[in-house]
């Protein structure tokens, strides 16, 4: 399926049914343009994380079509090629605990992109400076705070120089005082023009940074609008009641 001129992700009528019978995604369609920051909100179990994980095929879909950066995810192909272009940040960081911070960042560029250790380390040092952790290159993940770990995880994903970044509740596992430092890095990334899809409960972040906000519930995409109208004039009743609970 051809993508629109500046569309980088096109999702058409996708369905996801888990083996245990849960219908996690129902008929979801969405187009995301290059450089756009899209925030997905919704109650837990609404399918927003599943939606995000279908975009780099950590979850496969049962029906519909997804095209990311010109690669169709429904025709058999090299899924690793797609994932090189799509970075992901997890709720539980998922840093590699047996590798130093520097090696966490260098591993994939060296093994996947085939660049030399020196070049990889140069880039890693640059990225660590960007996320404000220049002094932690030699530390191991268990020695870092949650906020620091998540910033390393962002640097690790960026080291692959992806075109798209996916964030799966990046601040949900953090102590409240560490949420700010991670959001700050994400804002900086958004300003640099990165295409981002962010699943989060941080409404302030959505309002400030998002180009569009999506609302999902029970596997359906119920609302898709710019932040101002999303928060000030919500269309659906369900979104109104959701917002009244979280804000």
């Amino acid at each position, binding site marked *: 399926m051809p993508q629109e001129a500046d569309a980088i992700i096109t999702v058409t009528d996708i369905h996801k049914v888990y083996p245990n019978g849960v219908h996690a995604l129902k008929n979801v369609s969405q187009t995301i343009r290059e450089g756009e920051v899209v925030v997905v909100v919704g109650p837990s179990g609404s399918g927003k994380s599943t939606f995000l994980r279908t975009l780099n095929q*950590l979850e496969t879909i049962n029906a519909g079509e997804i095209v990311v950066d010109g690669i169709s995810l429904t025709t058999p192909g090299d899924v690793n090629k797609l*994932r*090189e272009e799509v970075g992901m940040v*997890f709720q539980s960081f998922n840093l590699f605990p*047996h590798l130093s911070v520097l090696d966490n960042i260098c591993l*994939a560029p060296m*093994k*996947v992109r085939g660049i030399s250790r020196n070049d990889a380390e140069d880039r890693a040092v640059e990225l660590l400076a960007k996320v404000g952790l220049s002094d932690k290159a030699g530390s*191991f993940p268990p020695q870092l705070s949650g906020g620091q770990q998540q910033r390393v995880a962002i640097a690790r994903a960026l080291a*692959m120089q992806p075109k798209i970044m996916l964030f799966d509740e990046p601040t949900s596992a953090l102590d409240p005082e560490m949420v700010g430092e991670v959001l700050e890095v994400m804002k900086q990334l958004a300003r640099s023009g990165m295409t981002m899809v962010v699943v989060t409960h941080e409404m302030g972040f959505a309002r400030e940074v998002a180009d569009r906000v999506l609302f999902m519930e029970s596997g359906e995409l119920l609302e898709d609008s710019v932040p101002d109208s999303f928060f000030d004039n919500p269309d659906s009743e369900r979104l109104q009641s959701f917002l009244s609970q979280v804000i």
Partner: protein
Amino acid sequence: MEKQPNQVLWNLVFGVLLLLMGVGIYKSSQSIDYIWRWERIPQYVFYKAENPLRAEFDGTVATNDSGQLVLVNDFNDSEQTVIKGFSDVQVYDGDLVFEGDLLAVSYEWKAGPIANGLVMTIKLSLVSIVFAILLGVISGLARISPNPALRNLSILYVEVIRGTPLLVQIFIVYFFIGTVLHLDRFTAGVAALSIFTGAYIAEIIRAGIESINKGQMEAGRSLGMSRGDTLRYIILPQAFKRVLPPLAGQFINLIKDSSLVSVISLTDLTKAGRETVSSTFSPFEVWFTVAALYLVLTGILSYVVRRMEVKYAARS
């Protein structure tokens, strides 16, 4: 505060219990009129071998220019035997010697049957451990493979091996496979032991890999790394650290199980023990010695593995 046991008192109790056990063993051997002959045992571990030099011809002992004793053939002066390097010379200058007479003796320390058996057990265990690890890692990985052929092969292997006694497996490997493929005893023994231990290692490896958080695989894959690379660089190094203690237990089992290969006439420590018993008639001393030697082997292994655990734990 919870009441803590008195360290001195209970260590003392431990010591007394050990002492009682020792006395018990001594008393019970007395009650059956057993005569302990520990002095017979060391020669089966190491013994002084006699190396005699005998005359090869009739001759006379003389001293040559450089002061060495030589035996000169009475019928042919050019035929001489220099007597040197012997600790115990039995002849003197001028002695008349006939063919076959003892000229001198030297002694050297040689390994007895028990020491040879110990070496065989070590060799057998080391070679088997290497192959068992190879087999175990390969079938452990196959067990979690998405490919049904690999997965089912691995399940079949593990179930068949775990479900049959090692002794029977040794017989099958030696008499059936060994006959078909013309394996010698040692190869058959190594094959049986590594196939047996490999099945248990496979389960340990699988459990180790599955104990690593699913997020680690997802993180590796989301960076574009292949499944194989993620396993190799991310999952296995972490799993290895966790499986070290059960793996050590399995290696210790292998050393002990290696005693069963004596049934195919491999002279390992156990078979050497049996042979020594039949020539000394001192079963108690021999089997205690053999047990102590096994304990030394497994003890060294435990120690090495514990050191490795500490080393790896320190790194994270």
